[in-house]
Every structure is written in structure tokens, then in C-alpha cells.
């Protein structure tokens, strides 16, 4: 339970839901505005608008699903399904899911799947959801930054395990992330150094990663700053 200075008492899940609700008002508004404009469009322009509406809708649905999954796993409604997962294939799939959304924002995705390493043991759907939710935030953040730096999906060997995450050009620091983890669901822009708005995808991702005993942390790799999770390679598979 987090109690903020203005008297609110909300559970972590309630705060997450508040942030999610605020986040979802954005794509729903985008869709409503697209429909308003499409009413006056020529056919070709209308087709483009519907493509945008579709991409935005799918991204939002994915975010809702990710949140629902985190609730179910935390609440032990759905058990974790642990299996060997290759991080590189995970990143490929994440990039594939993000591509239509990134295209609408005119943001390039770059993939650095990392070295061949032993797989990790994880729930693939949980990890996938976490990275995709995180990816949506980074796409919007890069577009807001108005620079041509791509969003990089990257994995590399770190000191404590496999570091998999998303990177872009930002000034996000560890203290900002810690502060944001206190403020999400309560401050309207808990990660304003990264992106405007509630950045719900970050906290949904964090909630999902916690089911795998991992947390999001600020990471720096090859000149870019991002958010990543450190995942442990499977000891059992190492011996195989």
C-alpha cells in the first residue's frame, strides 16, 4: 500500500489500474479523432486513417492484456508457465509486435539480439508482454523527443545475467525510475524525463517482471539509455 502526501491510499494494483486507465484515454481519443476526420476524407486518406486506428487499437488491447495477465499471475489465477526461452527470439517477436505501432509514429526499431547464450527459464508470454508494453512507451518517447534515434531492442551479457531491454536517447536515471515507482498512478507524469503522460507500459512491464523475480532497472548500453531486466540463464540447461 502506498500512501502519498495528499492522503490517497491505494494498493499497488489500484495505482497500476489508474495509470492504465489514464493511458488508455490516449488511444481511444486518437481513434475518436481519426473517425471524426475520416468522415470528411477522400477514400485513400480514409484508408490511411483506419490503418492508424487499427494500429493504435491493437497496441491498446495489448496493453490491457498485459495488465490483465499481470493481475492473473500475481493473484495466482493463472500459474506461471516456465520453459526455456531464447532471448534473441523473444526480441525478434517483440519487434514484430511493435512494428505497426512504431510505423505510425515514424520511429525505427533496431534489433540487437546479442550473443548466443544458453536459454533462460521464464514464462514466455509474461516476458513478451513486458517487453512489448515497454516498447510502446519507448516508441512514443522517441517520437516526442523529435529525434531520429531508433528504439533499440537489445540483449547483452551483464555481470549478473542476461540484460534484455529497450534503449533510446533519454536522460533517464536510476533516481528518476525509483521516484517514478513511488509516483505511478498518482502523478500524471511519473517518468517525465522519458515520456509525457502516465507511461503505464513501464509499470505494467515492471509488474509482469516481478512475477519472474526480476525488476526493471535503468541500463546503459552502447551510448543509449534504456530500461531493461536482468534474467538468469538456466543452470540446468548449462549442464546439458
Amino acid at each position, binding site marked *: 500500500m502506498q500512501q502519498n502526501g495528499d492522503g490517497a491510499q491505494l494498493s499497488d494494483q489500484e495505482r497500476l489500474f489508474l495509470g492504465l486507465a*489514464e493511458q488508455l*484515454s*490516449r488511444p*481511444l*481519443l*486518437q481513434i*475518436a*479523432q*481519426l473517425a*471524426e*476526420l475520416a468522415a*470528411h476524407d477522400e477514400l485513400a486518406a480514409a484508408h490511411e486513417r483506419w490503418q*492508424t486506428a487499427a494500429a*493504435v487499437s491493437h497496441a491498446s488491447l495489448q496493453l490491457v492484456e498485459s495488465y490483465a495477465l499481470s493481475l492473473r499471475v500475481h493473484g495466482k489465477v493463472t500459474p506461471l508457465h516456465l520453459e526455456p526461452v531464447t532471448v534473441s527470439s523473444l526480441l525478434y517477436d517483440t519487434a514484430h509486435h511493435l512494428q505497426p505501432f512504431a510505423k*505510425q*509514429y*515514424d520511429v525505427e526499431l533496431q534489433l540487437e539480439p546479442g550473443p548466443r547464450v544458453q536459454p533462460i527459464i521464464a514464462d514466455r508470454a509474461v516476458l513478451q508482454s513486458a517487453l512489448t508494453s515497454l516498447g510502446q512507451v519507448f516508441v*512514443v*518517447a522517441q*517520437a*516526442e*523527443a*523529435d529525434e531520429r534515434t531508433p528504439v533499440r531492442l537489445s540483449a547483452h551479457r551483464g555481470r549478473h545475467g542476461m540484460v534484455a531491454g529497450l534503449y533510446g536517447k533519454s536522460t533517464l536515471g536510476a533516481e528518476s525510475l525509483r521516484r517514478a515507482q513511488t509516483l505511478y498512478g498518482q502523478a*500524471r*507524469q511519473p517518468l*517525465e*524525463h*522519458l*515520456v*509525457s*503522460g502516465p507511461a503505464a507500459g513501464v509499470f505494467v512491464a515492471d509488474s509482469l517482471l516481478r512475477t519472474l523475480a526480476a525488476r526493471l532497472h535503468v541500463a546503459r548500453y552502447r551510448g543509449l539509455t534504456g530500461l531493461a531486466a536482468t534474467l538468469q540463464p538456466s543452470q540446468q540447461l548449462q549442464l546439458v
Partner: protein
Amino acid sequence: MHVLLIEPDRLQATALTQALTQAGHSVAQAVSAQAAVARADERQPDVVVLELQLPHHNGVEFLYEFRSYFEWLRIPVVVHSFVPPRELKHAVTLARELGVVQTLYKPQTTLQQLCAAVAHAAAPVAS
């Protein structure tokens, strides 16, 4: 009229620009407070449409900076934001000191209503 649109979300900015253009205005887009000052410097706007939630420096900071320039003191500002008006505890200050002529809550404002607000904001006051 020339409108300075301060909107961080690219898709939003595209839709709003198209609506304002269709209503007969020229539009300069800015994704942040810093960019907005630069755009205003390039071409003085007749009206500013402002999202308060911006990356790095919020819309209130922008307004205080904007109003520190003598030639920009009287340019009307329409706030068009995800922040609900009821949460702005200093809404009176926004109006009185920072020249916000109208505050629109995005989820409850159509593009048509926004265009009407912009037209109204820039209309000369009847003597």
C-alpha cells in the same frame, strides 16, 4: 490565423493539425516547451493550443516562460489537455496571470469544439 500547437504525441498532433488546417488556419507544431519557444520565435502565433503534460518541462513552465516576452504577453492560449480541469487547483491563476482563455479536457472535446474554441479565442473583443 496562425496557430502554435504544442502537443507531444505525434498522432494527436497530426489529427489536430489536420482539423485546424481544414478550418482554415496555418499550424506550427511543437512537441515540447523548448521547441514551442523556438516555433513562436520563427513566426509569432495568433493563438496557442497547449497540452499541459509535456516531456521535460510542463505546460505551466512554458506559459511562465512565454509570458516573460513582452511581445507575447497578449497572445491567447487555449489549454487542450488530458489533465481534468477539476484537478487544476490554480485554474484561476492560469486564467488571470497566464492568459489562458479556455481550458478543454481532451477526452470530452471533439475536434470541431477545439476549432470553435480557437476561433473564439482569437476573435477581437467587441468594444
